[in-house]
């Protein structure tokens, strides 16, 4: 534990103090220029990593935000005579506001559409910078003088220290933020937007916040960039720069401040790398070597597809051979970037620092940070006393898809503290009913009341916030997060610290509490030993149980389990029954959709049977099983004689 702390913090301290003190020993202006650029690109890439790494979106607008921030600072200084810090604040705000505005349409977008939106935004930004000549000077460019800082004129050294201080600040603040609930929420929405809303975390607000934050850092870097070069041209911020920035983040390693820093080093050194023949040959040979070693190891562990092993080798071999054949490597710089990027994206998806982190923690045997002892279940999941009131009431609920009447007038009541079964043949509308209750679909008509108050319609997020939590028939876990983080990110009523405190690192206590509570819930479903495993690496059964633990983290009034036993092996089914029993003992109200009749008979107090989108029977499990309508719905038979073999798994 202490070892880990010393290692991680020690490395940070060493690098930061080295960066701070270098100018004391050297007076080389060229080296100082490179260091200044390193700090600026460091900030820029940390910002880009928020969207590319944590939100998992291909963001092609960061170069444009750099440009917009740079021009904002430049115009503030030349036209309005702002001081240094005021101008930098404006660049930061410009990034924040425009980033937020651009993120608004991104609400409903992901993947290619998001990439397209950012691509168009950048092209538009460059057009505006080029054409609004009155303000920006157009293609002629904009010259400016470095403004005063507190009335002092800054020389190159002083300016470097200023950039360095900003980098260090950004580093610390982002480290705290990304390790908090915010960072988890970013990653959660990357892996499943539906579950992020259904767990009451909020996809929209976090997506907008994450993108605005990353863009704000881009704007800040732009301000520093303007004061560093003191001359701006729209052409500097086009697509070419964007590709280089992506190269930095991806090669350095996504989701890692160190990765962003490494990427920045690489970007700063690239021009030297390309112009120096020997350096380039060494570099490409090293790349080929890494690709071969990685392929060999992947082949030994049988972890990689052949393509993943071979493609980087081919790309790197092209780089080596091409390096000998072409006369001037600078002319081929784009191809060189492309080959490097390609190899990393295909063969080393975690980037260099991701690889290094794994390697180093093995080499020095650094254990992952210790977990606290679990809270008492009582604290994580307060138990309730019920008087048997109606908790949820559906009144003539309908949901039609075009001509298909998936749910056609369902009325039912769910009593507090009971396990209410919802069964019916395939296509009878069970899943649609819970999808309407939980807000995935808005009802076509009808009312839903939770504790007598109308339930919000058509919004997973709002429904989750009023106390309904659910699991999914097709699992919607946050695959890249650990089991523990999956539960932590959904926890309700734990995170109270305001954002500034979180950023400054004063929210450790509630993090610790969240960990303890999450462990208690993992214990409830029998996963406390696998708390650190990534959700996507768990067995299928364990994933189902993890979804239940995550849903419980909301401390809901009503828990909806959508076919929790689907696809489970027999021992896991018994385990599931045990888990649901212990959930009931806490006084939780549960709606259980299930096909396994034995599970339903064993657990449910009341069962509602649907067919063709309508309720055909309701009662205790044994009553329902004898109901001729139910038998007919399942098997199309009416005679009492056939009933004994009718209902599946009936015992």
């Amino acid at each position, binding site marked *: 534990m202490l070892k880990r702390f010393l290692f991680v913090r020690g490395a940070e301290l060493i690098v930061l103090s080295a960066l701070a003190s270098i100018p004391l020993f050297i007076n080389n202006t060229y080296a100082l220029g490179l260091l200044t650029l390193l700090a600026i690109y460091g900030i820029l890439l940390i910002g880009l990593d928020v969207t590319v790494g944590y939100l*998992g979106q*291909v963001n092609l607008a960061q170069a444009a935000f750099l440009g917009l921030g740079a021009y904002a600072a430049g115009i503030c200084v030349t036209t309005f005579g702002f001081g240094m810090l005021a101008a930098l604040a404006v660049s930061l705000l410009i990034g924040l506001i425009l980033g937020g505005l*651009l993120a*608004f*349409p*991104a609400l*409903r*977008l*992901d*993947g*290619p*559409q998001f*990439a*397209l*939106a950012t*691509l*168009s*935004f950048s*092209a*538009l930004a460059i*057009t505006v910078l*080029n*054409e609004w000549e009155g303000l920006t000077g157009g293609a002629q460019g904009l010259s400016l003088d470095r403004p005063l800082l507190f009335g002092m004129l800054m020389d190159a050294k002083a300016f470097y220290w200023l950039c360095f201080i900003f980098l260090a600040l950004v580093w610390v603040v982002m480290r705290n933020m990304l390790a908090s609930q915010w960072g988890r929420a970013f990653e959660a929405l990357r892996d499943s937007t*539906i579950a992020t809303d259904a767990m009451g975390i909020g996809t929209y607000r976090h997506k907008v916040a994450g993108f605005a934050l990353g863009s704000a850092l881009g704007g800040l870097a732009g301000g520093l960039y303007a004061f560093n070069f003191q001359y701006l041209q729209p052409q500097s911020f086009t*697509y070419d720069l964007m*590709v280089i920035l*992506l190269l930095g983040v*991806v090669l350095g390693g996504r989701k890692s401040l160190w990765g962003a820093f490494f990427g920045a080093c690489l970007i700063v050194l690239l021009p030297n790398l390309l112009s120096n023949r020997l350096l380039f040959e060494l570099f490409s040979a090293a790349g080929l070597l890494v690709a071969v070693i990685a392929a060999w190891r992947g082949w030994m562990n049988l972890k990689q*597809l052949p*393509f*993943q092993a071979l*493609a980087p080798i081919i790309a790197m071999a092209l780089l080596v051979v091409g390096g000998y054949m*072409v006369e001037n490597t600078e*002319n*081929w*710089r*784009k*191809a*060189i*970037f*492309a*080959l490097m*990027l*390609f190899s990393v*994206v*295909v063969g080393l*998806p975690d980037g260099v620092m991701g690889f290094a982190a794994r390697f180093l923690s093995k080499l020095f045997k650094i254990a992952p940070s210790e977990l606290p002892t679990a809270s008492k279940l009582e604290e994580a999941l307060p138990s309730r006393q019920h008087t048997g009131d109606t908790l949820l009431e559906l009144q003539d609920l309908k949901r039609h*898809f075009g001509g298909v009447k998936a749910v056609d007038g369902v009325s039912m009541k769910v009593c507090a503290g009971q396990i209410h079964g919802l069964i019916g043949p395939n296509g009878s509308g069970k899943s649609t009913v819970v*999808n309407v209750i939980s807000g*995935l*679909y808005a009802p076509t008509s009808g009312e839903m009341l939770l504790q007598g108050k109308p339930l919000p319609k058509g919004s997973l997020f709002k429904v989750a916030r009023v106390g309904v939590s659910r699991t*999914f*028939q*097709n699992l*919607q876990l946050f695959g890249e997060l650990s089991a523990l983080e999956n539960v932590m990110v959904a926890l309700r009523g734990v995170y109270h610290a305001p954002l500034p405190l979180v950023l400054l690192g004063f929210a450790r206590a509630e993090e610790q509490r969240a960990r303890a509570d999450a462990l208690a819930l993992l214990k409830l479903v029998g996963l406390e030993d696998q708390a650190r495993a990534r959700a996507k690496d768990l067995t299928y059964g364990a994933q189902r149980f993890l979804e239940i633990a995550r849903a419980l983290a909301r401390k809901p009034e009503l828990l909806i389990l959508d076919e929790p036993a689907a696809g489970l092996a027999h021992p896991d089914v018994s385990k599931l029954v045990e888990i649901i029993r212990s959930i009931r003992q806490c006084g939780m109200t549960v709606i259980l959709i299930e096909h396994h009749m034995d599970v339903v008979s064993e657990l449910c107090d009341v069962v509602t049977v649907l067919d063709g989108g309508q309720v055909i029977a309701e009662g205790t499990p044994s009553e329902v099983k004898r109901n001729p309508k139910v038998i007919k719905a399942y098997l199309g038979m009416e005679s009492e004689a056939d009933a004994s073999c009718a209902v599946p798994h009936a015992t």
Partner: protein
Amino acid sequence: MDNTIIIQMIVSGAFMGLVYALIAYGFQLTFATSKSINFGQGELVMLSAFFSLTLLNLGLPFWLMVPGGLLFGAALGLVVERAGVRLALEQKSEGWILLTIILGLLGFSAAENIWGRDDRPFPTPISSDAFQVLGISITPLEISVAIGVFAVMGMVELFKRKTLMGKAFEAVSADRDAAELMGISATRTIMLSYGLSGMVAAMAGILISPITTVGPTMASALILKAFAVAVVAGLDSGFGVVLIGIFLGALESLTSFYLGSGWREAPGLVLLILALAIRPNGVFGKSTIRKV
């Protein structure tokens, strides 16, 4: 007088818009089968145009060059699918966005070094002498663009409807899993769609080169507008792209007339962002139901 100029602007713009529509149609082909598009499609247009120009310079007659260029485009499409898309689709990730951007960059750099950075004229036997229709001047070259665009689209649509492979294409587009259960290989169908898409891109390159000249950057603005057309119309909108393409071509022609040529790209970009904000599935696209 003023009216004639405006109509002239609209008509000339509309012909350009047809080329945007053709490239956007290429996006639709791959999106239908795999829900992915090639972000480096512009480079396919450009590389195919350069290759066709080389064929011409080697002394090949124009009518033989066209199939040669189309084959080259189809081959490039297959390369993109193999190197940039298949792995990501297997991993169910969106890595293909980045990978196709990277492949485009590689193609761009190769073109820059093989053919040089300068723009070159593209000889064509079709005349660019204008004739007058109701006071509007139209060139045979523009007419050839329209004919070429509709010919390619028509051929691909016929292929999709009349041949067994084409029906496999439609089946995978409608429901990939069901098609696979019926014994249709989705991987091969996706390959086919990328090949077709590359061919369509090559056709766009051959059609537009005589008008714009050939150079490494010839498609960088073109591709943004093709994206805009594809998104505004909807990535599954079929012939909706033709209408939107014509509309956008006319709109930007008017924009550059009234605001100056520097603003030429702006309407497409603004429309794209607006469409994403208001109708992410496009004007003619079908809305989808979220499923869990």
